[in-house]
């Protein structure tokens, strides 16, 4: 029961917040919606038995990336608004124009079709097993990270270092501008 409630709640939160990101006029609100959406994704992870991934999602994404974005919004002149139209798709704020909107919808449809085609056989063959409680995955993930995926693990550390240095380099104010 708890499991089903978790799934429904987090799914609803995720989807609703994602659509909120899409339609809100205010960039700060978009960030807040993103916050909730990512939180919902963490719940979905938890419902799939991936407790470690869920916790990481909350810590890194919700605690780090979204806060970073809020800072960026504030550093770049605060919440900016763009005028929205009065009806139809124009209600959705900050849309480019009809063409972009049409393309977006079209692309989504194509993707839906494609995904349905590809995943149909997989879904048909899946045997839905009972959830075997919440056995901790931390230990196994840890050993996987340093055995099978150790190369990617090490490379990601270099990537993070590079991103750190690069971000500092790029954002540093220069006198000659």
């Amino acid at each position, binding site marked *: 029961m708890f499991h089903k409630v978790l799934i429904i709640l987090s799914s609803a939160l995720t989807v609703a917040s994602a659509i909120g990101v899409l339609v809100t006029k205010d960039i700060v609100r978009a960030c807040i919606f993103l916050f909730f959406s990512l939180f919902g994704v963490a719940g979905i992870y938890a419902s799939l038995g991936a407790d470690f991934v869920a916790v990481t999602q909350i810590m890194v994404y919700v605690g780090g990336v979204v806060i970073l974005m809020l800072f960026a919004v504030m550093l770049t002149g605060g919440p900016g608004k763009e005028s929205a139209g009065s009806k139809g798709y124009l209600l959705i704020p900050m849309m480019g124009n009809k063409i972009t909107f049409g393309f977006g919808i079209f692309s989504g449809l194509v*993707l839906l079709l494609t995904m349905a*085609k590809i995943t149909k056989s997989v879904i048909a063959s899946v045997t839905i097993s009972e959830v075997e409680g919440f056995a901790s995955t931390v230990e196994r993930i840890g050993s996987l990270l340093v055995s099978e995926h150790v190369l990617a693990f090490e490379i990601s550390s270099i990537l993070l270092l590079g991103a750190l240095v690069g971000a500092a380099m790029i954002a540093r104010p220069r006198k000659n501008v």
Partner: protein
Amino acid sequence: MDYTIGTVAPILLFPLAAFVINAFIGRKLPRQGDWVSIIGILLSFGWSARIFNDFVFGHYSSDYYVHKVFTWIDLSYGDFPFQIDLGIYIDNMTAMMLLMVSGVAALIHIFSSFYMKGDPRYGRFFTYLSLFTTGMLGLVLSENLLSVFIFWELMGFCSYSLIGFYYEKEEAGNASMKAFMTTRVGDVCFLLAILGIWSVVGSVSFVDIYNHLASGAFEGQVAILGIPLASFCAFMIFAGTIGKSAQFPLQVWLPDAMMGPTPCSALIHAATMVAAGVYLSLRMYPLMEAGHLTTFIAYIGAITAFGAATIALIQTDIKAVLAYSTISQLGYMVLGIGVGSYNAAFMHLITHAVFKACLFLSAGSVIHSLHDHHTHGHVQEMPRMGGLRKKMPYTFLAMACCTLAISGVPFFSGFVSKDRILGDALYWGITGHHAHWYQAIPPILGFAAAFLTAFYMCRMMFLTFFGEPRDKELYEHCHKEKLSLNRNIPLLLLAVFTLGVWYSGSLTGQGKVKVAGDRYEWFSTLIEKPNTSNFREYTKEPFGLKDTRGTVHFEKSHYDPSHGLSEEEAHHVHTAHNIGAGLSILVAFLGIFIAFLMYIRKSMDPGFWVRTFHRWNKALKEKYYFDHLYIDVLIQKVLLTVNRLLAAFDMGVYDRFAIDGMASVNRWLYKAANFFDNFIVDNSVDLTGVSVKFLNVASRTVQSGKVQFYFMVLILAVSFYILKISF
């Protein structure tokens, strides 16, 4: 002893590491990093000494060698093997060369810290010295011709940098260019030889070459125009030697090489650069024999020895005398190779390296102490020296030993080695059974050169150290020499090793006086011509961290006074050698005596000889017109004429007919096109304008620079692609 990466590679890596350290952070180190180079070469000397110890005191066998390889490049495909190995080939010759090169280079390094002191590019000099020594040590250790070539070129570069070290002076820059270009002629030939050998052997390893020579793979192979391949390869390798060891006719670069600082001259003339050429010829001696090239080699060596000695007679620059004596002595080595005196040629290489290094360092010591207060430069001209014996007793002592050695006075090293070469040449050319009439000239030239050598070396000594000071002011300003670690100790150490007893237990060099028991002729015992049939069955050993060889026990070699010949032949050989020894002692003392008469007793007037042979004198001053030949005739006349001819062809034929002809055709076409233009094209131009405008709008929209548009196109493209493969 194990021959692994840990025991062999450090010889090469210590100087290399010193080079790298000095090249990058040398300026920030105290004393500009000279101690890094010195420690590097001293450590290298230590490791070399271990190998020398193992070979000479451990195994003591002329057949013993170590050959280890690892794969460098492997591009084999199917049945086409293409594999290049790198590795080490160490035999007695290599062991001795290693000890000589690292030892002499170490002393030169130490002396440089005295000589170059206060130079604005002090640190850079040591950087080059380290790289230079690395090149020579690597060349000596190499097991194949390709890596020899690599280190050979490395040394070429270093000599270029060192000769042009004072690049502010125009002559220095020209001299370095000349040295580089002249040796390049030989290098190209060497590369051709490598290719030729590869075509037969499929490898350039020394051992593989010996193996194929023994199995007769070179027989019947023809290079071009009916020239046997063995002769072709042998000649090309010898051409490399001619370039590197400054033999006739490519000797022109070596005298100019003294433009560099004196320690680097010592390094080039003694231990490293010029020795490399002779070393290569010795290594490839079986090929030279198979190519029937020995007579040619003997002639080249004799001509070089004699010609350079004559030029040295009239030089007034102390370093120029030494430079020409180097060429002359290298000629002796090549003569030794040509007459089959393998052992003595190599011994002369070692002894010459020691005494020539000492001579150059002594000359450096003299030059350094003579400072002209008017021009603020060092003085190298002998006419301004004289009487320096009292000011510089230690330098005098060292230089006197070396002069006696190079002149061929008994009990000194030069006598031991040069006398053997001359004895062998005498046997080969005149008294031997197989001597043809045309073989008589090299030995005669050799003895004549020995006489001249004794004369001009003593002339240099007498002009520099004896008599009255000819330039009083210079003499007064010269400080009295004090015994110092980095000035005199290297000289005196080298001078000690000019004694013949180190190289041959018999003091006369004839195997007659035995002083060290069974091993009194260790040099002759250990160095033998490579017996190619010994290499018929061998397996390559991997060069790694562990020694995989089983313990090899060789029978200890013994000295054979009859050189493995029959009783009668040996008698002939000994007779020739006794005559040769007597003759060479005679000419040496004659030369010294005449120099004594001319420059000390003054009872003979040098001016008389100059006046009598004034045309010869002029030729000698112009160095037999070789510079004239190369620069004024070969380059200015021949190459420039060809150049002009090509230019004339360009202007006269190509320009007039091709270009101008094209122009007239074009003019005609232009008229036709003009008509076409006016009536047809003009009307379509408007259409073109419209279409361009249309395309412009289209492409401007696509190239909007808006990221979102690009992203949209991307998504669409990917979507259609997936759609295509999914349905």
